[in-house]
């Protein structure tokens, strides 16, 4: 018998579910009504759908604001400590919120489309309704036995499948009885960032924007003699390019500012899968540009197909990231939440639908429809791989058949000096780029397809002795970690060509342009970009294998200057035509900035002392540096000091002071230590950053230093710390439930950024015994060795046998053999010699624990080898003298602002282009 629950907002749960169900039903009614052209209800149905989605979004926000932890979604993504400014991040922190956000934009765009009536509207709205129908189903949260249809955002915690039946769910007062319902799990600390407030909505608006060109392309397929759908499709495509591009780069900005991987782009599967639809959308939009005004279309099939592909790739990307199929290959990916079959059904339905629409003959359409149904049955029967293989095969056949039979083709050739021709080539380049990235991202999926072929591949491999087949039969492909080989090898040359085309094509006219005019027009920007590339080559170090990168820098500079030149000379005061060239300038700058800031990223926290690496035979990345509290280390062009750490709210902040580096002047005759060797200067000079740079010209190796040299020798330094410049405060966000998250701090200049990140830092005091001693460490040492213990420099001056006379005063028996180590301890205030003993009594070792109280150091000689005069000594440090330290990484990103400025220009250019096209299309409509 179920008791009544007190304190629950159960009515809100009912209302929310009703709204979702209403949204689902009205999307279905809308779909049918727009197809059947039921004029009286089609618009109303869509408006009801939009209203119910908006209302459920508002309801979820209300639950967040009121901290209603009885709702699972709230409990998982919110806690009492979270500042309310992150409420948006919390809202889309889970899949349910992500779907709601996506639907929000579809509805906003749908309502805008409803206002503009055209002959394409009905089909477009029908497609939008069908997309929304599937999306709403993701939120239904209905169970058919074990099969789950959708994730209910209004699910109560006590109704969650893994809680059902637990004793507490039967208690009516569970909300007040258990303290854990007074607070939630909280939001992942990585998402508590302002970029997470604006990046997801922008990205999802971009995703939603790809649905509109898709819908227009479908509507265009219903009437192939009329290509007027291309104008609105073009506007929406450019809008999508601008928004999606901005959204992707905002994600990069988030990764750069808040994540710890030290860059803005890591070719992560989730990043990739949002980039790929953008690439195909760019390709599709440019083909639309070619075709919208032509009497006879060229590449009509490709135009339509690229637009279809963009949206299908958005679905594919959703499938990859939300289904859990990527597993562990991505840091962003979600775990499987039980909606994989549903996401797959969504993807396959739209793929099948798009390909059916490509066909013209209704006989083929019907036959293919039946074929797809059969494949669906095969899939449902559990033969997933077989079914999917058949499905892909069917898609290829349909695409080829429709390409060959169902599209208008033009016989005439385009001039090689025409804009159309090179835009077409550029689109194909974009497609290759997209295909390559998709391929790399899809390797975990591809493995599933290889699995059933595995025995066959193994047999072939052995029979024909082909290593590749044997290798593939293992079906264990994983994306490589070397980004230069995995991505850049292919993407950089493609980008070189694309950037080159961007520079060239802007100066070509449609139809044809005299070659000499084009060359003359391009010559100015060609010279400027060659000069600027030369400047960049000169200012940074490059290696021979980086030639493709330099080529990319050149062509992207060429794209920037050529398009800027086009603004300045060709369109000048006609600012309405500025959109496209400005967007292209922006894109060129994005690529230029990305290449230079990534390839010339300078990690200044590198270990520069050679012998550190010989200490560890095991490999060392040498990019992270340990710095003690109060120490000052040379790093690149700075000196860095770790001042202290302090806690502010949920953040532990580490204050890192940066000082100017003042150069040091060495005179002839100066003697220095470097890397355990002694050198003497044979002429006066100013020290460079690296000793190796000065060695040959200014220093002489002294194998056997004389007394003067031995006395005068000092450690070699590149410089001395000068004035304090600034302080950076990288931090660690404390989060008990989710684990602590480090966040970098970055100093921005016009021409570079300095990134500082704590790789490891202590946030709690170290473990000690009752008396405050920290775990001891054993070192092998010999006379002359020194070592730093906290603030104390410890040196073994000499060893001596303890004489019989002093034995009694040391508490030793006459028969004892004892060796004293004369250990010099030195800190800022005092210097003293201490003598721990190594005692052997009747061939047994008597341990002698020696404490140097004033220094907070305790030591014990564990063993002594008289032959090699080596001893093993354990040293303890007292917490009172302990020095804090952090392991940090610091890197300089040169010229990264070119990238961000490019991003802004790209967005501005795109919107200008959308706006002017909107205006001119309006005018031509009213005129004609």
């Amino acid at each position, binding site marked *: 018998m179920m008791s009544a629950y007190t304190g629950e907002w159960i009515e809100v749960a009912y209302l929310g579910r009703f709204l979702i169900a209403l949204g689902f039903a009205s999307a279905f009614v809308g779909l049918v009504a727009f197809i059947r052209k039921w004029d009286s209800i089609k618009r109303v149905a869509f408006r009801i759908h939009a209203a119910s989605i908006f209302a459920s979004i508002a309801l979820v926000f209300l639950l967040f604001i009121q901290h209603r932890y009885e709702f699972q979604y709230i409990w*998982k993504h919110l806690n009492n400590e979270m500042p309310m400014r992150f409420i948006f991040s919390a809202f889309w922190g889970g*899949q349910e919120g992500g779907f709601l956000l996506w639907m929000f934009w579809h509805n906003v765009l749908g309502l805008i489309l409803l206002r503009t009536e055209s002959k394409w509207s009905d089909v477009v709205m029908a497609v939008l309704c069908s997309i929304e129908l599937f999306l709403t189903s993701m939120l239904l949260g209905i169970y058919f036995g074990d099969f789950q249809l959708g994730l209910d955002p209004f699910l109560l915690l006590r109704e969650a499948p*893994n*809680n059902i039946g*637990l*004793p*507490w769910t039967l208690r009516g007062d569970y909300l007040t*009885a*258990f303290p*854990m319902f007074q607070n939630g*799990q909280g939001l*992942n600390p990585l998402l508590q960032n302002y970029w997470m407030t604006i990046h997801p909505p922008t990205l999802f608006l971009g995703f939603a924007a790809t649905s509109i060109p898709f819908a227009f392309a479908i509507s265009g397929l219903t009437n192939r003699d009329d290509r007027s759908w291309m104008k609105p499709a073009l506007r929406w495509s450019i809008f999508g390019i601008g928004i999606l591009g901005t959204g992707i780069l905002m994600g990069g900005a988030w990764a750069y500012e808040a994540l710890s991987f030290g860059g803005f782009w890591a070719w992560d599967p989730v990043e990739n899968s949002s980039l790929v639809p953008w690439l195909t959308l760019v390709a599709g939009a440019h083909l639309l540009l070619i075709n919208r005004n032509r009497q006879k279309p060229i590449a009509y099939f490709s135009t339509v197909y690229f637009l279809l592909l963009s949206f299908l790739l958005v679905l594919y990307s959703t499938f990859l990231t939300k289904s859990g199929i990527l597993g*562990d*290959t991505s840091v*962003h*990916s*979600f*775990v499987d939440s039980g909606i994989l079959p549903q996401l797959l059904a969504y993807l396959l339905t739209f793929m099948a639908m798009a390909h059916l629409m490509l066909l013209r003959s209704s006989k083929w359409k019907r036959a293919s429809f039946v074929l797809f149904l059969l494949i669906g049955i095969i899939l449902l029967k559990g033969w997933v791989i077989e079914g999917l293989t058949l499905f892909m095969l069917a898609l290829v056949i349909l695409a080829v058949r429709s390409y060959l039979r169902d599209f208008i083709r033009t*016989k005439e050739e*385009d001039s090689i000096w025409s804009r159309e*021709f090179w835009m*077409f*080539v550029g689109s*194909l380049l974009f*497609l*290759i780029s997209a295909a*390559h990235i998709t*391929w*790399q991202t899809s*390797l975990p999926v591809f493995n599933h397809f290889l699995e059933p072929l595995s025995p066959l591949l193994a047999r072939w491999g052995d029979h024909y002795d082909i290593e590749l087949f044997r*290798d*593939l039969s*293992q079906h*264990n*492909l*994983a994306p*490589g*970690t*070397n980004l230069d*080989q995995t991505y850049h*090898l*292919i993407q950089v040359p493609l980008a070189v060509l694309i950037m080159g085309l961007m520079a060239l094509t802007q100066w070509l006219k449609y139809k044809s342009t005299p070659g000499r005019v084009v060359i003359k027009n391009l010559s100015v920007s060609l010279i400027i970009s060659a000069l600027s590339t030369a400047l960049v080559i000169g200012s940074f170090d490059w290696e021979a294998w980086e030639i493709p990168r330099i080529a990319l820098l050149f062509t992207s500079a060429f794209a920037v200057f050529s398009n800027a030149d086009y603004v300045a000379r060709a369109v000048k005061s006609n600012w309405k035509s500025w959109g496209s060239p400005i967007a292209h300038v922006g894109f060129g700058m994005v690529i230029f900035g990305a290449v230079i800031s990534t390839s010339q990223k300078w990690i200044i926290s590198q270990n520069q002392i050679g012998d550190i690496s010989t*200490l*560890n035979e*095991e*490999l*060392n*990345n*040498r990019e*992270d540096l*340990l710095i003690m509290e109060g120490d000052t280390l040379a790093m690149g062009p700075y000196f860095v000091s770790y001042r202290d750490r302090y806690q502010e709210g949920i953040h532990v902040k580490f204050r890192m002071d940066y000082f100017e580096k003042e150069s040091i002047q060495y005179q002839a005759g100066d003697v220095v230590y470097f890397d355990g060797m002694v050198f003497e200067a044979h002429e006066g000079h100013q020290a460079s950053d690296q000793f190796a740079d000065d060695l040959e010209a200014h220093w002489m190796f002294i194998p056997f230093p004389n007394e003067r040299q031995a006395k005068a020798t000092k450690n070699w330094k590149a410089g001395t710390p000068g004035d304090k410049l600034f302080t950076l405060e990288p931090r*660690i966000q404390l989060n008990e439930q*989710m*684990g602590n*998250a*480090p966040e970098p701090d970055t100093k921005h200049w016009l021409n570079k950024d300095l990134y500082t990140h704590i*790789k*490891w830092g202590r946030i709690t005091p170290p473990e000690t015994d009752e008396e405050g001693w920290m775990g001891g460490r054993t070192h092998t040492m010999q006379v002359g060795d020194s070592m730093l213990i906290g603030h104390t420099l410890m040196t073994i001056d000499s060893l001596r046998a303890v004489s019989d006379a002093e034995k009694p005063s040391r508490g030793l028996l006459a028969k004892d053999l004892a060796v004293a180590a004369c250990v010099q301890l030195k800190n800022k205030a005092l210097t003293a010699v201490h003598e721990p003993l190594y005692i052997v009594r009747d061939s047994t070792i008597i341990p002698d624990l020696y404490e140097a109280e004033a220094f907070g150091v305790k030591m014990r000689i564990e063993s002594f080898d008289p032959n090699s005069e080596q001893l093993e000594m354990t040293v303890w440090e007292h917490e009172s003298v302990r020095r804090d*330290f952090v*392991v940090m990484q610091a890197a300089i990103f040169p010229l990264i602002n070119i990238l961000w400025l490019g991003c802004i220009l790209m967005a501005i250019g795109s919107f200008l282009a959308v706006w002017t096209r909107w205006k001119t299309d309006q005018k031509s409509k009213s005129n004609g």
Partner: protein
Amino acid sequence: MKRAHIISIGFIAVLIGTFIATFYSTSRSTTFAEADLRPEQECKISGTLNADFEIIYDPEVDPTKTVFHMTDRAGQTKRVVLSQPKPTGLENSESIDLYGSSQGTDFHANKMLMKCPSKYNQNNHIIVEDEGSIDGKAS
């Protein structure tokens, strides 16, 4: 033959070439046993942290060396030397992906990805032990 066709065919050739080329740059997800057969070749190994062994990270000796033991999917445990500072949350990690190669008795990893139970977790549930005592547990 139209010029566009020739170009298209050329691009398809490039496309196929790219795919084949990528087979050689991808790594392989394997087990420790297989990685031992191909020493010094990069591969990816998934598994879980073996909590029976201590995680050794001594930044004062080497800030970029973390040593721990991982059990791969086939059940074999091996000592792992990661050339990174100890990642936050390693102790609580649910699964680990290592990228690196087998070197003698150790596996040397230069890159590591972790799944932590709480990150994007959709499977949190609540267990109740006896009457009244209640505990939030992530599965």
